[in-house]
């Protein structure tokens, strides 16, 4: 390496801005020991309130790393400034790649429209939240807090980021006087001063439309102590930070991998940063991450990189169009518009079906694969569960949820039953889940009441 690490970073950032036209909020790089990186990476935020799942994931991540099954390079958290944690034991060459990768992430999160309203100062927020939750653990007991958090983790994707974070509650029921339009023969049919009008009750249905943000709903309408509601508020706020990441996983990781490749190449061309052997090593390492090894799981890095690279080539290596695309798309649209036969063939993509113990290849057709991918990504990779219009019986207190089977996959019933149990406990009243099944005529009903869950098959109404 020709220059010091610090100088190389400066050069990379300069080339990124000047030659590639990228722009990103300042990135604060932090070099940390391996263990801290594991700690930091075992959740969506570098630090957060305590939860046993982080312990589990920290353990799993460390195990995988120790066994050489995955090589974690960095952890990036968007914001203004953004934070990037790098393992201090990486070789300088590997660190260069990681830094270029982070610049890619920085640029993506600064420009992609989904990130526009994300909390730019998430670390401060998360620390504050963690302190609040810690206090609650002292006041109300670790177990109670854990129970609430467990429920929220289970419903984590039931947030609707299309609506504002702090939208107002539903309008309350009212009786209004409604005037009807003047009829043709009213002057004959009506009495002298009679008018066509009547009292009508409005806003009778709760919710007044299909509610996809169950966490918001629970926050406003659950009969729970204030501190539990505060936890919901905290969790929702943090989820708002995370949802853009989930919805742009392929684009984001692809972009970071793409920029990693492009930036290092570009910077070396202009400034001769590396000698030949170093450069070859860089290319090799990069290739490993974006490689298409046979796998049942489609790597977002590999897919994203392949798509961006293809777009780059199609645009005669002019990055301007790509800059536009990275601003306005999210994963589902990205796949819909840019995944074509060529990519499917290059990457050897295939659709397969798992049925009990048997796995079969079902398709290699571009149309089917594309729609399958879009299906998988729908609703943040989760089942479409929502509270339908009128699903809350305000008199009896029952909540009727609905699972819409719009991705041809079935709900895991054991999980569903267990979370309904927890939800019922929290809500304090009966919870019903209508589960659409493969047979459009049959709906399975799960009823959670008094701590037990019952299953009832029913024909579609």
């Amino acid at each position, binding site marked *: 390496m020709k220059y010091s690490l610090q100088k190389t970073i400066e050069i990379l950032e300069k080339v990124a801005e000047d030659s590639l036209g990228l722009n990103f909020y300042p990135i604060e790089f932090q070099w940390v020991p391996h263990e801290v990186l594991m700690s*930091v990476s075992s959740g969506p935020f570098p*630090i957060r309130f305590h939860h046993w799942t982080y312990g*589990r994931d920290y353990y799993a991540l460390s195990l995988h790393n120790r066994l050489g099954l995955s090589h*974690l390079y960095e952890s990036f958290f968007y914001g203004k400034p953004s934070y990037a944690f790098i393992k201090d034991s990486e070789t300088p060459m590997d660190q260069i790649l990681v830094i270029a990768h982070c610049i890619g992430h920085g640029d993506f999160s600064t420009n992609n429209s989904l990130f526009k309203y994300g909390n730019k100062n998430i670390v401060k927020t998360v620390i504050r939240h963690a302190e609040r939750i810690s206090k609650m653990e002292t006041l109300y007991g670790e177990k109670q807090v854990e129970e609430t958090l467990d429920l929220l983790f289970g419903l984590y994707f039931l947030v609707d980021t299309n609506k504002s974070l702090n939208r107002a509650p539903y309008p309350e029921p009212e009786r209004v006087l409604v005037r009807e339009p003047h009829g043709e023969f009213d002057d004959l049919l009506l009495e002298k001063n009679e008018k066509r009008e009547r009292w009508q009750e409005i806003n009778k249905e709760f919710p007044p439309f299909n509610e996809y943000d169950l966490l918001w709903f629970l926050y406003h309408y659950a009969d729970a102590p204030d501190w539990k509601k505060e936890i919901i508020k905290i969790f929702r706020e943090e989820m708002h930070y995370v949802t853009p990441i989930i919805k742009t996983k392929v684009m984001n990781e692809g972009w970071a991998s793409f920029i990693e490749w492009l930036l290092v190449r570009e910077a070396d061309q202009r400034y001769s940063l590396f000698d030949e052997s170093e450069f070859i090593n860089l290319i090799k390492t990069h290739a490993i991450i974006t490689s298409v090894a046979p796998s049942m799981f489609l790597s977002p890095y590999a897919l994203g990189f392949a798509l961006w690279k293809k777009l780059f080539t199609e645009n005669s290596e002019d990055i301007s169009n790509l800059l536009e695309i990275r601003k306005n798309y999210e994963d589902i649209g990205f796949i819909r518009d840019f995944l074509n036969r060529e990519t499917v063939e290059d990457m050897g993509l295939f*659709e397969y079906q798992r049925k009990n113990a048997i796995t079969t290849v079902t398709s290699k057709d571009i149309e089917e694969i594309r729609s399958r991918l879009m299906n998988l990504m729908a609703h943040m990779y989760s089942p479409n569960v929502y509270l339908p219009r009128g699903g809350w019986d305000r008199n009896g207190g029952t909540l009727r949820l609905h699972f819409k089977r719009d991705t041809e996959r079935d*709900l895991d019933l054991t999980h569903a039953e267990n979370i309904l149990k927890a939800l019922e406990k929290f809500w304090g009243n009966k919870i019903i889940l209508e589960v659409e099944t493969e047979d459009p005529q049959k709906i399975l009903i799960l009823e959670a009441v008094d701590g037990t869950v019952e299953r009832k098959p029913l024909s579609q109404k």
Partner: protein
Amino acid sequence: MKFPYDLFDRGKIDKRRYDKRLRDIIKSRLPAIISKENIITGKRGKKVKISVDLLEVWQFKYGKNGKSVGMGGGNLTPGDYITQGEWIPGLPGQEPAGQVYEQEFTLSELIDIMLEDLNLPNLDDKKHAVNESESYELQARARHGGMHFIDKRQTFKEFLKRLVAQHKINQRVENQVITNEDMRFKSFIPRNKEILSAIIFFLLDASGSMDYETLYLVKAFFFYLNEFLKRKYDFVEREFLSHDTEAYIEPDEESFFKRAGAGGTCSSSVFLKTKELIDEKFPPSYWNIYLFYFSDGENFEGDMPLAVKAVKDILPQVNFIGYGEIRTDNSYYTGPLLSKFLKELGSEKLKIVTVRGKTDVYDALQIFLKEV
């Protein structure tokens, strides 16, 4: 910005929470694990794998069946079967969290988890026996002794103390002299160590009706009991008594298992003998006394009232009596069992458990030793 370190260290801290959850789940599954694994005869270091697929947060999620997309399958065609082993499953780090983890535990660890919450009931920690085969303690304050045993440091300290008392401390030290009164010597005095005292009586019905299977279950119970005592109360005394129509004091556990399998059954004998021992060697004012008795309950009918009386007499002196009645399917006995009679005593200090199989051994331990 500076990150608060303890939140930063969440990996380890949260791992502790995870471990606790894991342990709770293991505990609830122990009965099944015990019956599957040969914990008693297995080597301590032998590893047992427990799949902990339960350690996920409950969520609305898709089931395992369904369609998905893979990569790198250029050579595959629709209709091909994919079996694990031919495929590399892909980077696990990209799998969603909550997959099946198989955690390994050594047998020792499992036993630790199993015995974690158990305690000797009604233990009175004020009871101390004087242990006579004690230790000698070094006492450094003797004013007399041979020069060979002089404690220089203590002597010098005393010297300085005297100077301070005599207001001579500011004068030149060389002019001062260590006197005989300053000297201190090391000496050894016998120290009677007071330790918490507990005596566990292991009582076994060694009669003819105690067959191989039954004895196996008793062995299992005593195994766990010993592991438990080893971990928590390694200073307890033990006495082993067996009986058929009369009672025998055994030198160790093995002996009464060797003897078992012949003779008639008079349970009263062993309780009477135990009482003799208590009166002779283990006064209740100094000792916490525990009895664990195992039998198949097929006592001579005529002995039943005597047995009940013997237990009734001994109850006031003991902290706790645990009686495990082993009923495997092999017995043809149709008469009344000892437990029926003992239940009538209705004492809080007497707990009766019926053991039918390996998993009941674990339950027996819980009933005897877990604080409710």
